[in-house]
């Protein structure tokens, strides 16, 4: 059984004018379908990548998976449980929320500039009441920092004292704080330099192997995806146009859109060989 199963996932946004204005001006309702009937599944311990251009619905799917947005139709099951199941009580919802964490695109915007790193890492631990004892909470923060290749005294610093790559490490440590099983990485390296990008991607791979993490990896960079994902889903205008194992899909793309994406992606591998 797959760890994550999304079936016929749909999300619509109502962009209409208010009712009264519609009546006066005689306008119709205007509904945008951001994600349309998308189904996919992710096996435990593997990486599934969603690729597509801006506006293709990648981040909307990520938010629905994290339980931040409610799907208009369809369902998502994470290890057999659904956020939007009315039968799910609050305690179970909280447990599920603890198992799904997110790493965001911009490490400059996703860390509170007024909080010390130690406090940022403590927040998820406190929110889920994971550790009662103050001393062991403190120990856990140091352990998290070391896990992402940073040192214990960094917890006293503020986000602005770190470079982009280090901040992204902190974001990853925060995501790891509550022992998640699924991490949603929404363009985690697009704000970083190549050399730093390599460090962050390798870190994500190491963490996956050590902790059997499942990743949903969102990116528009096919080169990054080909290095990270076991399976790729190609999104276009909210629809999944093609899906397959990474090696198959890259070697033998079927849909015209996938071919176009592959042709457009700059690749030094093809250039130097």
């Amino acid at each position: 059984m797959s760890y994550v199963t999304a079936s016929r996932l749909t999300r619509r946004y109502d962009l209409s004018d208010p009712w009264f204005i519609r009546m006066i001006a005689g306008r119709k309702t205007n509904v945008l379908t951001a994600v349309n009937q998308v189904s996919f599944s992710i096996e435990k311990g593997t990486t599934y990548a969603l690729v597509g251009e801006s506006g293709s619905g990648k981040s909307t799917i990520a938010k629905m998976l994290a339980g931040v947005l409610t799907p208009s139709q369809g369902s998502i099951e994470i290890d057999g449980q659904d956020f939007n199941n009315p039968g799910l009580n609050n305690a179970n919802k909280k447990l599920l929320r603890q198992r799904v964490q997110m790493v965001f695109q911009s490490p400059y915007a996703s860390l509170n500039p007024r909080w010390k790193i130690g406090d940022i890492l403590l927040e998820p631990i406190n929110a889920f009441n994971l550790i009662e004892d103050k001393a062991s909470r403190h120990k856990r923060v140091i352990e998290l920092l070391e896990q992402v290749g940073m040192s214990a005294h960094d917890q006293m610093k503020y986000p602005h004292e770190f470079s982009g790559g280090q901040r992204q490490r902190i974001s990853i440590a925060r995501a790891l704080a509550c022992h998640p099983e699924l991490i949603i990485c929404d363009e985690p390296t697009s704000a970083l330099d190549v050399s730093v990008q390599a460090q962050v991607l390798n870190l994500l791979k190491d963490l996956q192997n050590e902790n059997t993490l499942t990743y949903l990896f969102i990116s528009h960079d096919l080169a990054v995806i080909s290095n990270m994902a076991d399976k790729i889903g190609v999104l276009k205008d909210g629809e999944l146009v093609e899906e397959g194992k990474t090696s198959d899909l890259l070697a033998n793309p079927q849909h015209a859109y996938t071919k176009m994406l592959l042709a457009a992606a700059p690749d030094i591998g093809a250039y130097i060989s």
Partner: protein
Amino acid sequence: MMDDKDMQTPLLQINQLTVTLKKRQALFKAVDNLSLTVNKGEILGLVGESGAGKSMVGSAIMGLIDKPLFISSGEIYFKQRRIDINAQPFRGAEISMIFQDPLVSLNPLRTIGSQLVETIRTHIPLSKSEALERAKRLLEEVGIDPARINAYPHTFSGGMRQRVVIALALAPEPSLIIADEPTTALDVSVQAQILDLLKQLCKDRGTSIILITHDMGVIADTTNRVAVLYSGRLAEIGKTYDVLKNPCHPYTKGLVAATPQINGASLKNKLFQIPGSMPDLNSIPAGCAFYPRCSQAVSRCEGERPALFDNRTACWLFDKGAKPK
């Protein structure tokens, strides 16, 4: 691409340019003793990590260096004439610049037509209607329907906006365009279109382009020659294919190896990572700036700064004259 002969004529020559930052009475070098040439009709890539001084070089050429930075030494020759470091009006006409974010570089309150006409008439003495005609031709050239000349910037998508910015840059008919990360804010497919457009302009008009980017893939797709910068110094320069295929400098090697490539086989292997990070301006090592992160460093790297050997790379490993290895 242009003939090789045309590409031998230097259009822009930078000699030993140093840009210094003055902070609390201390001086730091943001660009250090950099020499470059840009030939006619060629695309030169400037690549490096953030903070390597790529954009600073572009600003220095445009005369946009402002306090607390200043150009402390060096000369810039444009078409064999030395240009005064502070003469801005000249540069707008002969050298123009494309910035990263097209939303910021266009005025949101004015139509693209009026912005184009203004730019054209600043540099070329034309009547309003002539300038309007010219603006329409420019839009056509960059692939925008001239009927949209009275549209406002917000009605265009990101890629279209960047095309408008390119039209603006072309308006004074410059012989050199400095494109500072022109496609970083765009999608891959749009990026490919914009890069193709720039290549086409080079070919049709013989315009030279300095393309500043941190994306090795873009460098591979677009440029004729590439210069790799590290801590404001030139690490390596050469034909793009040579540099990417057989990088000399350990830093270039690292950058190439760290860039993910599109093939399914790479999934299980880890990417190469360069240990550490680029030094701050106040702690650049005395010898080779890359020395602390370099895996092939020899003893003299620490104290002595390498010159550019073979017109290719600033690395002691390529110093043939001095020592047998």
